[in-house]
Structure formats: structure tokens, C-alpha cells
């Protein structure tokens, strides 16, 4: 019985917004890996991950974000983060990943950074 569907995918122009729910950890990241892999297969290379409803995140979750960030960048795409919690922001800062992965507080602002006009 899946209590919650962990991922909702929305499309705004050529950007795919992925709303995540629950844990982003070793036990919960497989749907996201599959989701981003599928987006890459379909040529949708601009991905905005919305972490608003992510309740827990650990090093494995961040590691998975980094792996997908690299995959997308290599293909000319990008992965950016929306609504990052204070704790996740801390994790990105101490690993210096905040220098390379962009984060946003507003979806509109994030979409604009991808070149989407409001």
C-alpha cells in the first residue's frame, strides 16, 4: 500500500518540475533516479526539483542529486533545486555543492533562470 505517491512531475515549457515527497535517502531515492533517467531519455534536460515536501535528506540523497546534476550538465541540461530546507541548505554548504547547484525560494524565479517567461 503506497501511502503517498513520492513524485509528481509537471511541465512548464521546456522545464520539468519534479515535486518530491517524503525521504530523500538511500531507501527513498530510487523513484527519483528512475524519474530523472526517464526525463533524460525523453530529452527533457532542464529539471527543477521541488524539495518543499521532502521531510528528510541525508548524504546519499544529496549524492544522488549530484549524480543526476552531472548527468544533465554533461548533456547540456541543468538541475536546480527549489524550496530547500535550512538543514539541506546546510548540507549543500558544508559540501560546497551550493557553489555549483543553484537553489531558489520561488518557483517563478527558478523558471526564469531556465529562460522561461512568466
Amino acid at each position, binding site marked *: *500500500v503506497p501511502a503517498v505517491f513520492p513524485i509528481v512531475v509537471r511541465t512548464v515549457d521546456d522545464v520539468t518540475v519534479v515535486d518530491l515527497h517524503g525521504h530523500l535517502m*538511500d531507501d527513498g531515492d530510487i523513484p527519483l533516479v528512475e524519474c530523472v533517467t526517464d526525463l533524460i531519455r525523453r530529452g527533457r534536460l532542464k529539471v527543477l526539483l521541488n524539495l518543499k515536501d521532502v521531510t528528510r535528506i541525508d548524504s546519499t540523497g544529496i*549524492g544522488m542529486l549530484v549524480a543526476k546534476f552531472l548527468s544533465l550538465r554533461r548533456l547540456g541540461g541543468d538541475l536546480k533545486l527549489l524550496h530547500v530546507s535550512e538543514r539541506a541548505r546546510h548540507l549543500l554548504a558544508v559540501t560546497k555543492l551550493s557553489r555549483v547547484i543553484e537553489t531558489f525560494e520561488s518557483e517563478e524565479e527558478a523558471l526564469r533562470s531556465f529562460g522561461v517567461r512568466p
Partner: protein
Amino acid sequence: MSSSSAEQRRVLIVDDDRALRHALATLLQGKGYAVEQAGDGTEGLLHLRRDGTDVMLLDINLPGMSGLEVLEQAQALPSPPFVVMMTADGTPETVVRAVQGQAFRYIRKPFAPKAIIEIVGDAMSAAPAAALPIEVISARPEWLEVVAPCTLEVAERLHALVMQLETSLPEDVRESVAQACRELLFNAVEWGGKLDPTRKVRISCLRAKRMLLYRIADPGEGFDIERLMHAAICNPDDDPLRHALVREEQGLRPGGLGLAITRSLVDELIYNEAHNEVVFVKYLD
């Protein structure tokens, strides 16, 4: 562990608080579970022996037989369920007894509906390996020491239980300790223990007046921290992605951030010479 062949997974609620029982039953039925109820331990065990269940939500302060006694008897059954202990008491002594009784999780009342749904979901999706026994070496709240098989499932269970000892701490301290413990424990069972359930990891959690000290000893040979090119802790300042590229080249799964993150969360992080034992300290003032 029990496993239902029917599509609908089963939850047994054992609590003398009728209103809570009904509220929980309604909540969980709404999530698609088949829910049974019992008002005391005797009735709960009777139900368990007769029909079994996948997950039992068990109050500790039951009339007559206590929840901890029910837990002990439930674990002796041929096909015990995953047991989630519920209590309003929440003393460290009770948490330790729940660890001894091989509980799956421990939750303090009152709890948010979301929290219990998440725990029941965790139990329903847990692998049978999550039920492997944890040996308790020292059962004092100020010195809990356990030996556990090297599986991620047991590490997850142990971590969730141990963190219930620290609920009196400020939220930010508790979260830091929880995350540091999780990162190091998972490193220990995965890298040191090779996820081999026949190998054991030893965890000591010491609580002093002004500090917490955790020691984790794994059965591996240790490592040379200077040569961990696949770990972010060795990244040059100007290249935070180097470890990820190394991991890709070596065919390792994404990760490598645990040590870098842990170092930022605790006050002291000390390895022994071989690097198969680690101590971390969090000062409380």
C-alpha cells in the same frame, strides 16, 4: 516476520484508549490497510496467535499485562509482526527496554497522523532482514551499548530507536546527532561490514551531563583517509564535484558525502589508527 499473501496489509492496534484506537483505525483504513483492534495485551496476543498481522501498534501502558510484556511474547511467536511501541511516558528506560525487546520503532504520544502513517509505511516495506536481532550489551539510558548485524535495515531500525533517547535535547542538536549517527552507522555496516549480516557492528551511546558521545566499531579493516578520493572530504576547495566524478569512474553508487557532512555536525570526530572505530562528541553547553 509475517507477510500477508492478501493484497491488503494488516495492522493490529493494541491500546486501552478507545478514542485513540478508533482514530488510528480510521486513519490507517483510509490508507488502505486492514485494521484490527484490541483493548489490552491479552486480547492483542490472542488476536496475534489466531490471525497474525503485519504490523502491531502497541501501547506500553496497558492495563494488566504491559506493552513490553506483550512485545516479549509477540517476539516469541513463530511469525512475529513488526512492532511499533507507542507511549506517553517516553523515559529513556522505556526506550532501552523497547530496544531489548526488538521493537521495530518507538513513537511518543501525542504524535502527528503523518508520523504514524510514515512509520507504518516503513514497517510494511521493511525487508525481513530488519527483524534480525540486536544484542543489548549495556541497557542503561546513560550507556546504551549494542551489537547488531551489518545490514542497512537493522541500522535503520537501530538508529530510529536510539534517537528516541535524545528527545529532550533541543531540536537542532538532536537533528545533528541523529544525522551524524546515521551517516557513521551506515558507513560502518556498508563499508566495514560489507552488508554481511553475519558480521557485527558495535555501537555505544553515552550520555553525560554536558556531552553526548557515540562510538561505532565496525568489523572491517579500516581505511586510509588520505586516499579516499571518492569521498567529498578529500575534494580540493575549488572542486566540490571531484569525488562524484571519481565515483562514476570507479562504478560506485552516488554518495561520498557522509564524512564531510558528519564533520560539520559534531564537535569532535575521532578515528582510531586503523579507521575502523570512530567516536563523535556533541557538547551540550
